């Protein structure tokens, strides 16, 4: 349980600093988000039962809510739903290799 909490916290820190970097440093270089691409890729390639994709989608959404003019929770909930839906479709209808070496939470 404690291990899971520590892993989730580390994931949050990585996503938080990545987000800060993108919103303050990278707007000069690019107009798309590497973080969003990362979240989609993780959700695509993680094992369907894994939770990293879901957690990273939720955390990224939450940070986007905080650092935008939207209501808090709008992106967090929609990204989480998107992650769940994607995993559901992939597990049920698509046969695709997943990265089993990804750390699990």
């Amino acid at each position, binding site marked *: 349980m404690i291990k899971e909490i520590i892993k989730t916290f580390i994931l949050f820190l990585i996503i938080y600093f990545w987000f800060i970097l993108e919103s*303050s440093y990278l707007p000069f270089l690019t107009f798309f988000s590497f973080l969003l691409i990362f979240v989609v890729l993780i959700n695509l390639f993680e094992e369907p039962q894994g939770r990293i994709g879901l957690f990273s989608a939720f955390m990224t959404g939450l940070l986007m809510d905080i650092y935008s003019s939207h209501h808090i929770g709008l992106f967090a909930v929609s990204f989480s739903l998107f992650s769940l839906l994607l995993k559901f479709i992939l597990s049920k209808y698509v046969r695709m290799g997943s990265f089993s070496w990804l750390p699990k939470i």
Partner: protein
Amino acid sequence: MNSVITKKRILALVFLIGCFLIINAFFKDGLKNFFYSKAEQLQASLWNKGSEEYFSKKNQEELNKKLIEENQKLLSELAGLQGAREENETLREALGLNLQKDFDLVLGKVISKDILSDSVLINIGLNEGVKKGFPVILSGKALLGKVIDVYPNYSRVMLITQKGNNIDVEIPDAESFALSKGEGSLKSSLDMFPRDKELKEGSLIVTSALGGNYPSGLLIGKVKNVKKLDNEPFQLAEIEKVFDLSTISNVFVIKVAEIYND
């Protein structure tokens, strides 16, 4: 039930939605302000660093900033002169009443840009007297945007290029009014310019007081790529911005006597 969509996950999501509803109702601004204050220093230094990196040669960077600021000043002066040439003193007194308004400027710094939209966060807010709807300009009277959200120490500014941000503008060169339409991705276009008038490349575009959204005479940009299509009732053009987001550091919020319409 599927192993992905479990009862536990659905319950957790419902619980989170409930929490978010409570947060939005009571703690939204406070929570946002807390997060902004914790990351402000890091964000401000990253913003400056990014600005320096963008112009690879450090010596050129300062020179570029100065030249851009100077250019903005000259362009706004030029726009003012063009307008003044067309009006006599009596008309100016009658039409330019809002120029008489005495507004204060509050200096702020940009600390981050929203990833998904054209809006930036600045480090002044309610405590400095900023209110929703206040226009935000750069040195040289170039319009950056408008305050859309205010927190105790921070404000969010919607840039003129934000999708759906329509501004009534004037082209003093052509003695005509038009509409500046935000296209998103730091681009904006000119619309509703009458077909029967000549729209020249490079003409200056300034805000008009007609729409009641912004004070008049603030510089928006220059006309670029004019299109006069047969099937369009108006002439269209692109707007060349007078600011580069990468060079912006300091901004001024105009504390207007009255809040302009949304």
